[in-house]
């Protein structure tokens, strides 16, 4: 178990290094940020001076080496636009994104799994088919358009919810969160729902498929032969079996939700790292882009790692090994 964890950790670090190189390579090939930061009327001397000051005249590999060593110390450069450490910018905005992502996941799980269960138990009933049709609609809807519709309905027409921004925040363990305030919840509702929609549909379909498969298994028949109530058969026997693959999928999808938050943040002007990324791309603020990508990649790798370990913990067959006790 320990050996497995260490090996996965090693693999993860390797992937991290490779990704950092790719990210660096890609981002540093974009245009010329000098154009952005220097007075357009500046002459060549000015530009040369600015270039040298920012270290942009060194060969690529040397830039990467410097970058890597600085990165190991947590210094990912300063934003060209804001002139603060890039990593600081990202970390400032990250809690907002994470809050949005978690809220969306919670909604997706709370609604998706029960619906999927219902659809899987009675696939050919009216309810089952409606849920399935609904799920197709759910992941066909372009999320940005749904955001627009939500704003249209709830902000413009009904005036119930604010169309953009994040609400009041309070400090929870030193991190500002907004879901603990009523105003915060009002601001969180639409973006979280918007973000949740796609994942919700996927979860419904996954749960339905897993349930359909599980119900055909012999242990379900045996459980019924024991005279167990249908509630127990579904709620304990089936649920425990399908939760294992579903939990792993949820874990993996969490990373994807953080990425998709970029779109939601743009629509609802949610002050998270996604919006920061888009702005940075448009402004060619390389250090911020790099910092963002590295932070995201790290989060991803961490999530993958945790999910792998979690899977082996949850499934007793993996955890305890197939020791034939006789």
């Amino acid at each position, binding site marked *: 178990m320990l050996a497995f964890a260490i090996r996965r950790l090693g693999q993860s670090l390797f992937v991290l290094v490779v990704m950092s190189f790719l990210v660096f390579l890609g981002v540093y090939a974009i245009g010329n940020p000098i154009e952005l930061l220097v007075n357009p009327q500046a002459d060549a001397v000015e530009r040369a001076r600015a270039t040298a000051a920012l270290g942009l005249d060194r060969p690529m590999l040397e830039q990467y080496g410097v970058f890597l060593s600085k990165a190991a110390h947590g210094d990912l450069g300063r934003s060209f636009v804001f002139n603060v450490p890039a990593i600081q910018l990202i970390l400032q905005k990250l809690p907002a994104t994470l809050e949005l992502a978690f809220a969306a996941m919670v909604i997706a799980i709370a609604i998706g799994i029960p619906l999927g269960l219902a659809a899987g138990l009675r696939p050919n009933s009216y309810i089952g088919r409606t849920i399935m049709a609904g799920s197709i609609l759910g992941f066909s809807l372009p999320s940005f358009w749904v955001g*627009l519709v939500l704003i249209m309905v709830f902000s413009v027409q009904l005036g119930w919810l604010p169309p953009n921004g994040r609400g009041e925040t309070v400090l929870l363990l030193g991190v500002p969160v907004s879901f603990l305030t009523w105003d915060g919840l009002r601001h969180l509702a639409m973006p979280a729902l918007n973000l949740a929609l796609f994942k919700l549909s996927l979860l419904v379909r996954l749960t339905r498929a897993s349930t359909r498969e599980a119900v055909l298994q012999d242990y379900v028949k045996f459980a019924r032969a024991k005279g167990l109530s249908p509630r127990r058969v579904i709620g304990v026997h089936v649920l425990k079996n399908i939760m294992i693959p579903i939990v792993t999928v949820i874990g993996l999808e969490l990373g994807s939700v953080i990425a998709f938050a970029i779109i939601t943040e743009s629509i609802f002007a949610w002050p998270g790292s996604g919006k920061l990324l888009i702005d940075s791309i448009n402004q060619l603020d390389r250090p911020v882009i790099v910092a963002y990508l590295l932070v995201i990649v790290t989060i991803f790798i961490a999530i993958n790692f945790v999910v792998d370990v979690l899977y082996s913990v949850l499934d007793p067959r993996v955890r305890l090994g197939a020791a034939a006790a006789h």
Partner: protein
Amino acid sequence: MSVVAEKTPQAPPAPLAREQSPWRRFAAEFAESRLALFGLAMLVVIVAIAVLAPWISPQNPYDLAQLDVMDSKLPPGEHSATTGKPYWLGTDDQGRDMLSGIFYGLRISLVVGVTSTVIALAIGLALGLAAAYFGGRVDAIIMRIADIQLSFPAILIALVLLAVLGQGVDKIIVSLVTVQWAYYARTVRSAALVERQKEYIEAARVLALSRPRIVLRHLLPNCLPPLIVVATVQVAHAIQLEAALSFLGLGLPITEPSIGLLISNGFQYLLSGKYWISFYPGVALLLTIVAINLVADQLRDVLNPRLKK
């Protein structure tokens, strides 16, 4: 006496008296879902619109000569102040007829989506077959790359690529292809591996049939069913991704406005109640995606032997 215990009686395969060609059987099974047929019909209509856009649009929205700024931001159903022609879905801030804009936009979205899918499929197919056939190192390398890529969300990869490459139709297609090829490669490889282990491939190798022959005539046809399903779904994903990227301002340039750009254009007018500039393009996109997904779902059920009851 066999050892197999029965659980439920198996209905034996339908008698061979009805000699149907595989295509007709496939069509019949597909048609079992009314929803899928509906999706297919919708898809045909949408593709027709996209193909015939220049001829059936009331107006060419990109011909500046035809636009009248006086007609800008008219709600749906209003008539032009100058020509008296009706604008069925309203106009945008430049006076462009939304309906025409949507027709042309669909065209671009579909072309980009399908093109990138086809290219990605070709690349993925080649790499997947190579991985399955050669095995060993080749397989490991290709699949490692594919796996690492697949563990990151498509939008992130696309964003980074676009940030690096800049804007333009060709660059969008490159991004979309990069994002997609791994799905095809993986699917093809799995199917090909299953097939490769079957005995008749061994027999063919023993008979020293040339490699390309083995690959093309034996491995390939069996990879097709899952590939078709994946490709159909991926077209929808490609279209959605392109729309999202265009919405974010990183996708197609303004000279070739896809649906995503139309939607993002109208975003600023949303809060003042002029919803139609964003709303209707979104509906068009939605219908396209739903149609594709309905068809894809039924294809998956029909082509997947494991789901056959």
